């Protein structure tokens, strides 16, 4: 009985330590657990995979700030690798002032891996305030929304945007976000202009977008680090991408963290019922 009381009163620092070990240890142990592809990830991959360089540029919006980058950056990297492997043109942007730095950094890094040239193969747009209005404005005229790119070049001079006026020439807009920003893309991008929307979101937010997946208002979704790992698995398998698969590496840590969490919940419940039974007996 004393054992369960001690478990129930376990100092939280032990829990923190246990969690830290569970997260850090898998980085030093080489374990490969096969990753099964979920339908929302497969749907997004299949849609992008059917596009050709003539389909027009895909738009990736980095609608997140550094706090959620652990989960979301691997998605952005995987999507960019897929697009560049297929020689698709890419427009990257952010509806967050702090997201634009991340967008620029990641896009230019991945572009270097594939020898892609800024302005010709991809374009990074600067931050523009008022996110609903920005989406609506892209639906009318993207070059009016962004007169210059992030580096100050006039967008009407960029070969990447030749013949691109609005959503009609952009086959898909993918919002990567840990907040409700994809809702705005669905409401204003899909409903008003019929634009295909892809979503990359944190695991906790993923449930919010299932209704839109079912109604096909969202073409596909990457949910949490697992969604990113699934996408990495697909592009590694079909395009033999060589870069570091951050999400796949992180999945072992996440697996361990989830197992520890479940063990803690089970222990907490056993101790709760054991103590309650004892209290009833003494009463």
């Amino acid at each position, binding site marked *: 009985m004393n054992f369960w009381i001690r478990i129930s009163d376990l100092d939280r620092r032990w829990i923190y330590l246990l969690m830290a070990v569970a997260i850090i240890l898998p980085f030093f142990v080489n374990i490969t657990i096969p990753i099964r592809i979920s339908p929302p990830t497969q749907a997004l991959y299949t849609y992008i995979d059917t596009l050709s360089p003539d389909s027009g540029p895909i738009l990736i919006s980095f609608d997140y700030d550094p706090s959620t980058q652990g989960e979301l950056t691997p998605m952005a990297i995987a999507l960019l690798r897929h697009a560049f492997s297929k020689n698709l043109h890419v427009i990257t942007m952010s509806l967050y002032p702090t997201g634009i730095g991340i967008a620029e950094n990641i896009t230019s890094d991945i572009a270097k891996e594939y020898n892609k040239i800024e302005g010709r193969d991809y374009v990074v747009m600067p931050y523009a305030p008022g996110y609903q209005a920005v989406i609506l404005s892209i639906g009318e005229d993207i070059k009016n929304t962004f007169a210059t790119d992030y580096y100050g070049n006039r967008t009407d001079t960029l070969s990447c945007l030749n013949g691109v006026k609005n959503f009609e020439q952009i086959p898909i807009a993918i919002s990567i976000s840990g907040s409700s920003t994809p809702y705005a893309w669905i409401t204003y991008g899909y409903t008003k202009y019929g634009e295909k929307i892809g979503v990359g979101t944190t695991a906790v937010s993923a449930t919010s977008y*299932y209704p839109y997946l079912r109604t096909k208002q969202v073409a596909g979704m990457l949910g949490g680090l697992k969604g990113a790992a699934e996408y990495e698995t697909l592009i590694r398998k079909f395009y033999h991408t060589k870069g570091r698969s951050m999400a796949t590496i992180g999945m072992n840590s996440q697996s361990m963290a989830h197992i520890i969490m479940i063990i803690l919940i089970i222990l907490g419940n056993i101790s709760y019922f054991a103590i309650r039974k004892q209290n009833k007996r003494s009463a």
Partner: protein
Amino acid sequence: MKRRLPLIIVMLTGIGMIIQYFIPHPVSKAIYKQSIDWVIIISAFYLVLGVGGIFIINYQKIKRRKEGWWLSIITLSALIITALIGIFGGIDNKSVFMDIFMYIQLPMQAAMFSLLAFYIASAAFRSFRARTPEATVLLITATIVMLGRVPIGSLIYRGLPGITEWILSTVSLAAQRGILLGVGLGSIATSMKIILGIERSYLGGGE
């Protein structure tokens, strides 16, 4: 008049934009495009208001020597120094501004968010108890979803990812759709109240 004029502007703009949506005439489209440009320009002033707010609050804190006033000095110094570096040194990939973002802000914000894993583990251990039948259902569902969302789940039981996907795309979806419909109806009601001048809290003044 001070209160009536904004109400009239809101009412005319709101009704005008609703009518515009259903009229695909070039004049109507031109008004729509112009309105979007205006919204983007006006939105830029949010940033001015935000920065102004940070300045005023922190300045007053320093002036009155309130608890933690020295933290306000750090906040204002960081704001001013970063802005000056960005304005005069540029914001491209190799700039000092970008280095500040990549090597200070990015790891700090990521570290703050990552602490959640530890707090959630501790909170789950202490509070996630099967006290009632509803709590038990929640507990079992959460456990299945937690296992099904990681690759180790399919090693424990092959069908687990499929069950997880079913929970998310069927059970959870039903509840989500109900919430979304409620939010949608609520948004329409609130918008109508604002357009008709019933809801006036956006005017400020506590009335």
